[in-house]
Structures are given as C-alpha cells and as structure tokens.
C-alpha cells in the first residue's frame, strides 16, 4: 500500500505543484478559477484517454510515439507558461492594486485565459495518465488490489494537500512581491520542462546523444526527495547535456525577453488605478 501511495504521490505532486503555482500566480485575476478548474477537469479526462490509447501512442512513429507525445505536451506547457508570464508582466500592476482593494478595474470579460486552462490541463494529463495506468494495472492484478488502490488514493490526497499547503504559503508573500516570486517560479518551471522535453527526444533517438556536461549525482541524487522536488520546480537534473542546458537557457532568455517587451507596451492600467 505504501509503495502505491509513493508512486501515485510522485506523479500527482508534479501536477499539483504546477497548478498551485498557477493559482497563486493569478491571485485576483477574475475567472481564473474557472479556467484552471476547467483545465484540471479536461486534464483528468485527457489522462483517461491517453491511458486508454497508451499502446497506440507508444507504437506510433516506430515505437517512439510516447516520447514524442510527451515532448510535445511538455513543449505546449512551456509555451503556455511563457504566455502566462508575458501576460502577467502587462497586468501585474493592476492585479496588485486590485488585491489591495483599491478600486482597480480589471478589464473583465476581455481576458481569454486559455493559457491557464491548457497549462494546468497538460500537467494533469501527463501525470494523470501514468496514475491511471498504474492503478488499472494493480486493479487487474487481483489479491492486493484493494490495498494498492487505497494506497493510490492516499497518494492523490497527499499530493493535493501538499499543493494546498504551498498555495497557502505562497499567498503569505506580500502582494507587492507575490507576482515577482510566482513569475520567477514559473520561469524556472518552464525552463525545466523544456529541458525535460529534450530528454524525451534524446531517449527516442530523434536528438543525438551527448555526454553529460557535469554530474552532480554524488552531491544531490535526482531520485532523492530534495532532488525530485528540485527537478519538478526548477528542472534539476544530475547529468544534463548540452542540448538540455541549451534548451533551459534559451527558454529563460526567450521568456524574459518577452516579458520585457510586454512591460514596455502601452499601459493597460485603467485611470482609476493610476490615481490610486
């Protein structure tokens, strides 16, 4: 039962942390719960579909369909997180004002927040599909199925609770710094996902194998608790190669440039906010 809980927890945690950070990063954005909630629901449904077609996905493209699929899903998530950060660098000021209860009017209705739905949905789908396959696999296994199944439920709950705790913690950050902190969190998250997607393409043999640039497995093993957490949050890898480090850095640079460009665009803050 414990092993099942741990396996499921590991998968759920990644999705939970991404959703949590997105929730904290959009505090005060009208309608964001609907977009993120919808994304989660779609992600759960997507996880079921991906699990059901796992065999077909895997055997596609000469047996590397799964890697290509995972890499594509990761890259879509990277794009959405980039979009989020760029969008936020235009809207952060009015949101801060809004959270401080100043009569800031946020241009409601004119905000299609697809990126929130897609970013949370892809995270849930990717990790959820493995949970579904795992639980299905133990359920079909017979004897210890009930114990394993309850273990799985414990794992899901633990993941959600961890996410909730992080959310509470993040919201303790003073409003004036909140979006700066979540902006950096999402930036590093996106860079890490980009590096991971390269790992899949290398495993598939689509990108060439390259020797690791360094090896920190002795200092901080990636499979350790801290290593895994850092892997999820900032994309820590014990043996990254040139392609992965390159993807990491270029993602950082591109998103930062986008944010800088967006914050230079004409102000969208309403006059009411400006007076305040």
């Amino acid at each position, binding site marked *: 039962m414990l*092993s099942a809980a741990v*396996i499921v927890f590991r998968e759920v945690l990644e999705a939970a942390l991404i959703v949590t950070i997105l929730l904290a990063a959009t505090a005060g954005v009208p309608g964001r719960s609907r977009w993120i909630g919808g994304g989660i629901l779609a992600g759960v449904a997507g996880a079921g579909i991906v*699990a059901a077609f*796992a*065999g077909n996905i*895997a*055997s596609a493209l*000469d*047996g*590397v369909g*799964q*890697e290509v699929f995972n890499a594509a899903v990761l890259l879509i998530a990277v794009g959405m997180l980039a979009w989020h950060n760029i969008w936020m660098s235009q809207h952060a000021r009015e949101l801060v004002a809004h959270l401080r209860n100043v009569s800031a009017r946020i241009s409601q209705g004119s905000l299609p927040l697809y990126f929130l739905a897609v970013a949370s949905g892809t995270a849930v789908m990717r990790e959820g*599909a*493995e949970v579904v*396959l*795992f639980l*299905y*696999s*133990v359920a*079909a*296994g017979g004897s210890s199925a009930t114990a394993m199944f309850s273990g799985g439920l414990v794992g899901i709950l633990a993941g959600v609770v961890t996410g909730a705790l992080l959310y509470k913690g993040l919201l303790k950050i003073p409003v004036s710094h909140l979006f700066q902190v979540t902006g950096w969190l999402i930036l590093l998250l996106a860079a890490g996902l980009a590096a991971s997607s390269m*790992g899949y393409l*290398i*495993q*598939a*043999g689509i990108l060439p*194998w390259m020797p690791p640039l360094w090896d920190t497995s002795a200092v901080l093993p990636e*499979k350790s608790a801290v290593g895994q957490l850092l892997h999820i949050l900032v994309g820590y890898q014990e*043996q990254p190669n040139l392609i992965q480090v390159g993807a990491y850095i270029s993602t950082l640079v591109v998103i930062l440039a986008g944010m800088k460009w967006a914050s230079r665009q004409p102000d969208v803050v309403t006059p009411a906010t400006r007076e305040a």
Partner: protein
Amino acid sequence: MKKWVATVMMVVGVSGLALADQASVEITIKNHQFSPAEVKIPANTRVKLIVSNEDATAEEFEGEDFKAEKVIAGNSKATIMVGPFKPGRYEFVGEFHEDTAKGELVVE
C-alpha cells in the same frame, strides 16, 4: 583493385553487421518479471532496448542508476535508447511492480 574494393566492402559489411548486432537487446516482461533479469550490453555504445510486455497490463520501465523512463502498455513492445555506459552494473525496475520487476544492465 577489384579485390581491394571487395575487401573494403566486406570489412564495412561485417562491421556494420557487428554494430547492428551490438546495438539492440531484447527484454521480455512476463508475470511482472524481466527476462533476462541480467542484460549484457557492450560499454561505450548506444544500445537499443526492445522491451516486450507480455502481461495484460501496463508497466513502466525505469532506470535506477541511469536515465530511462517509459510506459509500456499491456501486450506490446517498446524501444528505449540507453547508454553509452562505462563498464559496471546498472539497475532498472518496472515501477508499477517494483517488488518483482527488477533487472540489471551488465555493461562490459
């Protein structure tokens, strides 16, 4: 001259065969166990693992001491590129049945 060309072609052909031989290894999963559980592969070479899952349910092939992660659906086959490794032993597991699904790459 003709002889020389033939020799070169033979050498190229043979080494090509040798490479193809070395480059892939088959592993089977049945009853949530790997067979063979000890997989011999050459050092310093990129190796293609062809893993057939003969169980009805999915398994996740995961490297413990090396990077590899792949879900293999029930009754299906997957290919995973690993290495190149330095000589040694590298453990892998079937994450969904870690108690029984254990194996090692023996790199020499």
